[in-house]
């Protein structure tokens, strides 16, 4: 115990707090696990929600995934990113839950339709940037969430894992069990569709009450 504490308390040890925590949890100090995963708990929930789209199921799967990560903590290798490892476990758990719940049901037809058809952007007006500060407003977040929810599942899932969960292309492909080429195609389409949806939203006044409305153009 005494030696372990030295690692934590020594600021010159050259490792980050996260690496220390991982090492200690791997040694059996499971009571430190929550401290380790806390910075990622929101992302873990969002990953489960991306797949399951039901708050209760997503929360349950997020918890299950955390317990699974704890049980398998010794399998975590330092060369991987801990957050990525955690999110991949979560996506896997969520996909298993979905498969179990939909066993015997016919999958939605959008799942197997090919994604080869190219997407042509619809809106070419000068892009009016939505500044990040706008996210302080609940209605803006709501509109962005609605736009995302309107995408087909295959586009939405890839977009969430890559752009919200910050997995890279390869990790996204592994998590969803699809090819890298598919991830790239779906990601492109998701991004372009969202852009059009938000540009259209602007025209319909979604963002009309943004703080910069009366001042100079923010773009």
């Amino acid at each position, binding site marked *: *115990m005494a030696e372990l504490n030295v690692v934590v308390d020594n600021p010159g040890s050259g490792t980050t707090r996260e690496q220390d925590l991982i090492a200690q949890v791997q040694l*059996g*100090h*499971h*009571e430190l*696990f*929550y401290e380790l995963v*806390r910075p990622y*708990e*929101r*992302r873990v*929930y*969002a990953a489960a929600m991306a797949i399951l789209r039901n*708050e209760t199921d997503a*929360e349950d799967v*997020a*918890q299950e995934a*955390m*317990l699974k990560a*704890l049980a398998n903590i010794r399998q975590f290798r330092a060369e991987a990113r801990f957050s990525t490892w955690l999110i991949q476990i979560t996506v896997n758990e969520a996909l298993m839950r979905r498969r179990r719940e939909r066993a015997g049901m016919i999958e939605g037809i959008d799942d197997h339709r090919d994604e080869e058809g*190219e*997407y*042509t*952007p619809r*809106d*070419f*007006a*000068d*892009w009016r*940037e*939505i500044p*990040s500060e706008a*996210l*302080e407003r609940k209605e803006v*977040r709501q509109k*962005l*969430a609605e736009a*995302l929810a309107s995408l087909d599942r295959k586009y939405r899932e890839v*977009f969430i894992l890559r*752009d*919200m969960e*910050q997995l890279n*292309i390869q990790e996204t492909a592994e998590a969803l069990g699809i090819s890298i080429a598919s991830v*790239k195609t779906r*990601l*492109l389409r998701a*991004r*372009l569709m*969202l*852009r059009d949806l*938000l*540009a259209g939203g602007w025209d319909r006044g979604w963002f009309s009450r943004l703080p910069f409305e009366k001042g100079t153009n923010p*773009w």
Partner: protein
Amino acid sequence: MVNHETMNCEHVWKEISNYIEGDIAPASRAAMDDHFRTCQRCRSVLDGTRNVVRLYSDERMIDVPSGFGRRLEKRLSKTVRAQRPVWSTWYTWLIPIAALLLFVGGIRWASTRGHSQRPDQAQWVDKIPPDMKVVVSKGAKEFHVPGCEVIRNKEVRTLTARQAIDAGYVPCPKCMRKYLQAASNANATQETEARTEIDFDDERESRLR
């Protein structure tokens, strides 16, 4: 491969996501940069797509139900508490040694059980009141005084000593010994009991050797 001069809008849209990712050959990137300088429509597509990526990557876009973190912490700590006695203690290294001793002891114990006709053993068992309430745990071969620390945290079944003996259970050397000791102290001391204790100690010692 991509001709600098002929990169058209459709081609730019197709590559725009890779462009943002930085996952594109330098020649293509240069061609696209040229295109953006002259094509306002594609510039709009690029700006908008970048804006989308930036907005959604913001932590504020993640909405979790209230109390989520608290419930997670509770569930984790519940699990951790359940595992605690096994891990995170300085004497963890003793566990394999104890296991080895128990294993060796078990073999010796099993080998002595063959001589159940030995008078001292029979007498020892005979001292146990037949209607005494004892408990047994699943998968084990010993019966215990209720509350014995050997069966702490284990699921137990209560029965009488006679039933336990008839079912092939043997007395727990720890708690049953204490029980008999207390009982014999309470009663007038008898020679046979003293001998039983000595015999038992010998046996225990031999198992631990």
